[in-house]
């Protein structure tokens, strides 16, 4: 009790100090993003698990190469290249798919979960605006997940390369062939471009839509996100016997103009010169997509103001 009575005369001073302290909005955003990472640990656990799986599989493949592979290694350089590089591309693909799935489910729960467990009442009792909150949640699929994917993929591919090298050196073979066929630096650059261009920018309206639905739906956010799109497609088909909407969605999902280049070939076969970031950056598809994403996010911000616990 003594300590309390001592504390009382200090409180006016403390409050002055506190009042003087201004927290910049960026700091609030930073802590809000950290909060998301605390809550949704699948953001890094899922891709790490995928990476572990890949490494386990790759280890077995490296130690016990099949006869088919041994035969192939004696083939012409192009075949050889394909075979050596394949697991590296596969690793990148698998980790990207994992994080995309994580992103979809994260978005669907982001503004829904806090209403379901009533914690929105706690978050709203703190001086963090709805805009900051929604931006922090949107930054997970738009910024954090691409970077996490990049980091984990590069490290995984690095470990794979090291494993192969170790096995080769152990059996007294040269690693030169391997290293020329796996240009790690170039692959990483391609991957980073792919993640930023497609997963962050091109897919932005998809995440925006999912976040909006998660802020709006009272339950079954997944159905509410999928059914209206399906309904539009069906109505269009019946009314006009066309499928422009479905084609539009397909175009968006496939990654647009840049996405086609990645699916067509492997990541290192096509040199970096094949990519056209300039063209991508001026393509209307990108900017229309970003505008739509911004609209969805603005709607999600506004919606959160009105929303309470479910």
């Amino acid at each position, binding site marked *: 009790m003594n300590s309390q009575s001592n504390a009382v005369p200090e409180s006016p001073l403390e409050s002055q100090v*506190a009042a003087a302290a201004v927290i910049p909005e960026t700091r609030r955003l930073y802590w809000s993003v950290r909060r998301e990472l605390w809550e949704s640990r699948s953001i890094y656990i899922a891709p790490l698990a995928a990476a572990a799986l890949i490494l386990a599989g790759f280890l077995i493949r490296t130690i016990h190469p099949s006869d088919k592979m041994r035969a192939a290694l004696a083939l012409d350089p192009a075949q050889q290249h394909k075979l050596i590089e394949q697991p590296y591309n596969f690793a990148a693909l698998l980790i990207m798919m994992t994080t995309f799935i994580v992103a979809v489910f994260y978005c669907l729960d982001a503004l829904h979960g806090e209403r379901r467990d009533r914690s929105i009442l706690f978050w*709203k009792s703190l001086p963090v605006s709805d805009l900051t909150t929604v931006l922090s949640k949107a930054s997970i699929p738009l910024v954090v997940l691409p970077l996490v994917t990049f980091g984990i993929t590069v490290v995984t591919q690095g470990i794979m390369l090291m494993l192969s090298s170790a096995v080769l050196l152990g059996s007294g073979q040269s690693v030169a062939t391997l290293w020329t066929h796996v240009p790690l630096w170039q692959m990483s650059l391609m991957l980073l471009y792919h993640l930023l261009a497609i997963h962050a920018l091109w897919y932005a309206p998809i995440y925006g839509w999912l976040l909006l639905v998660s802020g709006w739906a009272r339950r079954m956010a997944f159905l509410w996100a999928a059914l209206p799109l399906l309904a539009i497609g069906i109505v269009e088909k019946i009314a006009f016997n066309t499928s422009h909407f479905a084609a539009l969605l397909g175009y968006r999902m496939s990654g647009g103009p840049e996405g086609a280049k990645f699916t067509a070939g492997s990541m290192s076969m096509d040199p970096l010169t094949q990519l056209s970031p300039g063209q991508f950056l001026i393509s209307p598809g990108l900017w229309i997509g970003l505008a739509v994403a911004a609209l969805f996010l603005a709607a999600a911000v506004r919606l959160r103001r009105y929303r309470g616990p479910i």
Partner: protein
Amino acid sequence: MACIEARGLRKAYGTTIALDGINLRVEEGRILGLIGPNGAGKTTALNVILGLTPYQGELRVLGRNPWTERYQLMRDVCFIADVAVLPRWMRVSQALDYVTGVHPRFDRAKAEGLLAKTNIKRTSRVRELSKGMVTQLHLAMVMAIDAKLLVLDEPTLGLDILYRKQFYDSLLNDYFDRSRTILVTTHQVEEIQDILTDLMFIDRGRIVFDCSMEEMESRYVEVMVHPEQAAAARALKPMHERQVFGGSILLFDRVDREQLAALGDVRTPSIADLFVAVMGNQAYRAQGAAG
């Protein structure tokens, strides 16, 4: 400046009118109890004050419009809306880190000090804590925020009697300093009788009773009357009468204490008794609402 000032405050959900033209004024440094039956509009009133719901009419909280300036308002206002709204996945240390990160008026050392008096471990997740501990945690965080207005909506719901007692003791001893304002709603009226400075009853979206505790204690008198004196007592127009074993208890408003003392044992009514009397007395309510 009044802490909360409302004129003609209205809120309707579809055809249901939750707030039906509320006028109120809460000065700084008061502890106001907002009491009402279920569905009376208590929570709606709090939500409107906290800027969680849009409304019609005029409302200023600390001089701000709570709906359009909610985010700025939350620097000076704290609330515990219901119990168990702390996210269950969060660790105690994370909760402290986060609030430190976003709240300019949060005094982490004070929160740590308050938590040191409890059995709550820093590494525990909220879901691992008992309901009482979650409330202690929330209270510790809220008390460490140097806010001007603290709003508590049924803060002790579902807690056992020890925690409930501790909750209000701690609020009064460690937090309230006469410059802060506390607004509390609860059904456990007997627990807050001694801490309130002001009392308001709300029913069907209207304030039906509004007075300070000092005024209440001087105005309202409850008399335990023997059956033989009942007729004489009733002639003084009690607000309310209830039968108990061996007599009746009559509640009077602004009747001379000396005069009543002659009829039986005189005492100040409890909030619960006054509440029942006001709610059951239509004529009085109409008058109370007007005043």
